[in-house]
């Protein structure tokens, strides 16, 4: 994987922000479109070993769903699970498209997560 130090730094910075600002966050993972992890931060109990690959598949399937329904590009995929949420957003940086995955507990407020995640993604896109 050939990522510039600049992009890596921007990714780390995005993770810092999200881990700090989102209440109930358990993990933030930033990965390539084809499922390789670029940077990650994880709270104790969270497991993100394969999240990068899974996020890439889901993002790709989300893209197909968006196209088939003629709704345009897929921006994010949200999963609501018994004990929390996973939000996966596309960060379309000129160098490469990244996927930002945010895993939260049930106590997180979805609106807040979406807001901060989108902000961080926008910044990352412009890095």
């Amino acid at each position, binding site marked *: *994987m*050939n990522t510039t130090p600049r992009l890596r730094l921007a990714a780390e910075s995005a993770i810092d922000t999200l881990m700090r600002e989102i209440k109930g966050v358990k993990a933030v993972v930033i990965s*390539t*479109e*084809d*499922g*390789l992890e670029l940077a990650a931060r994880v709270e104790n109990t969270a497991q993100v070993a*394969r999240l*990068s*690959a*899974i996020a*890439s*598949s889901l*993002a*790709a*399937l989300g*893209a*197909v769903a968006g196209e088939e329904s003629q709704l345009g590009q897929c921006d994010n995929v949200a999963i609501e699970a018994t004990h929390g949420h996973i939000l996966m957003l596309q960060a379309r940086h000129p160098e*490469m*498209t990244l996927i930002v995955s945010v895993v939260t507990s049930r106590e997180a407020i979805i609106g807040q997560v979406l807001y901060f995640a989108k902000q961080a993604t926008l910044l990352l896109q412009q890095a």
Partner: protein
Amino acid sequence: MTVEHKILFTGTMGAGKTTAIGAVSEIPPVSTDVRNSDTSVAKATTTVGLDYGELTLDNGDKLRLYGTPGQMRFDFMWRILARGALGVVILVDNSRPDPLADLDIYLDGFAELIAQTACVVAVGRMEKHPNPGLDAYAKRMEDKGVVCPVLAANVTDARQVVQLLELLLLQLEA
């Protein structure tokens, strides 16, 4: 587990899964190709979700053809796609450094499906890369307790892809 009307194509990046499906599918294959960030493989894109093609049977049912992602990190997709499949075609690229090791990955990854249904191993690029030979593949499969057809194939040729499918059918027919 109900048997669905689907056949899987798997194999390493660049082995020809998307091409094989495209060769026989009625519809242009739906693919989830994204940019390949792995600089060790000279291929621009890679499948991260699945490839999808279809054939309509005479009673209106669809036979669905699925291509899986090749890399091991997507083995969760292998499990999902393998459910209820009629069989699997493993495509191997003989120009890669260790094609037998590649084969091992899919024999292991799809072991249960192979044991329950049918499998065909198609080796590509053999004209320019004759080694390992087909007998080496046969022996490797024997080591894993698998006996199934292994032959050279060029999946850009629709007739050869149809032949691979026929070899799957032969194994499934009583």
